[in-house]
């Protein structure tokens, strides 16, 4: 194992273990996703045809909110117990450490959302193809949400504030991901555009947010810890 990868692997395993054992992350995210999805028919009405038409949008909104709200404390908890200082003072570049934390976070909260999607699709009257399409777009799109949310999580350390302010700051930035995620799902279900067009753009957005999110989060953490 190279000297660069070793600490990153340790950090990754630590974050995954923390998320699973403490149980604050993935489980609650999925529960939140479930509740938001279940609430929708109460607001819209139990019309199955209508739910089938707007189901992908509802699932995407629920996943968007769930993945952003679980990010709130990603760096703040590490900041409070001092481990963030250790991470930033180590020889490992802060950007790589942040990318590792993001990967661990996505694995414990983003992936469960993707796995839960086909089951929640049943509530939304989505057939097999439709559920698979939504799950596939979420698989490609939730990393983007994690990376955009990283900026908010890092700013909450810099600002010593979290909650609503960060949601207000970060949510407008997720509009492109939402547009292309829902468009790709709908393209697979009803058309008229081929699935590939919006889906490849969604993947491109994920790659862009990977770069922008990680570097912006690293900059925010450096500024915030002075």
């Amino acid at each position, binding site marked *: 194992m190279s000297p660069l990868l070793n600490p990153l692997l340790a950090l990754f395993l630590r974050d995954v273990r923390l998320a699973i054992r403490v149980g604050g992350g993935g489980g609650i995210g999925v529960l939140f996703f479930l509740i938001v999805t279940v609430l929708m028919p109460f607001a819209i009405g139990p019309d199955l045809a209508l739910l089938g038409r707007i189901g992908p949008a509802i699932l995407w909104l629920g996943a968007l909110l769930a993945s952003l709200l679980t990010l709130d404390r990603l760096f703040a908890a590490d900041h409070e117990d001092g481990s963030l200082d250790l991470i930033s003072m180590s020889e490992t570049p802060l950007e790589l450490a942040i990318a590792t934390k993001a990967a661990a976070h996505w694995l414990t909260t983003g992936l469960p959302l993707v796995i839960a999607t086909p089951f929640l699709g049943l509530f939304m009257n989505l057939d097999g193809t439709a559920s698979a399409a939504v799950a596939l777009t979420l698989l490609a799109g939730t990393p983007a949400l994690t990376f955009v949310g990283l*900026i908010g999580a890092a*700013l909450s350390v*810099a*600002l010593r*504030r979290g909650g609503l*302010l960060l949601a*207000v*700051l970060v949510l*407008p*930035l997720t*509009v*492109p991901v939402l*547009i*292309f995620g829902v*468009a790709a799902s709908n393209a697979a279900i009803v058309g008229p*555009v081929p699935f590939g067009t919006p889906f490849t*753009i969604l993947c491109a*957005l994920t790659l*862009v947010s990977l770069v*922008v999110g990680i570097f*912006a989060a690293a*900059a*925010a953490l450096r*500024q*915030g810890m002075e």
Partner: protein
Amino acid sequence: MALIDLANPTRFLSLARPTLPWLAGLTAAVFAVGLVLTHGAPDDYQQGATVKIMFIHVPSAWLGMFGWTLMSAAALGTLVWRHPLADVAAKAAAPIGAAFTFLCLVTGSLWGRPMWGTYWVWDARLTSVLLLFLMYLGVIALWRTVEDPSRAARAAAILTLVGAINLPIIKWSVDWWNTLHQPASVVKLGGPAIHPTILLPLMVMALAFTLLFLTLHLAAMRNEILRRRVRTLMLMQAQAAPGSGS
């Protein structure tokens, strides 16, 4: 030398004091010319007299974008050179940019009512301006909730730059989304070719609005410098107060 002089807040204040009245006067003069030209501009054959709304709608849209550009430039100054004057410039620009973006939205919707028959359509341009407005409100909320100005400045700078990268992506996504959901039946604001009789008043009004923005920005920057002085003095007073333990 000159740049370093300007970068000093005290120098900036002594420079802003004589400049402001001249800038304000110039703004008023250009506005007077612009309004006269606007009044004399001919009606559009399709949109009638409502085309007059364009003379405030388009400059407001331009200044909404100009404001974010200015904030991004200032954000670079904050992050790269750690310059307090850049913080001041970014903070002062946010409410002014937000006000012009708001004006763009309101005039756009007042223009839309007679043209489209409704105050709001999810037109690509209006929607991206709405998102720009929301991002302005977010930045203003950030400035207002964080007490320490330099901490707020750095966080706002990062957010502004991320926004600057994201805004073209948002604009493009919204365009794509709009063409997907709406057939091209909507009357486009502005139109492809603008006749010179309309273009000239539009340019003069755009110049007037830009001068207005610069005047307001200079005045707001001056206020912000004074506000920071008050803050420093109050902190010093609190430290010097008997029983404070120092």
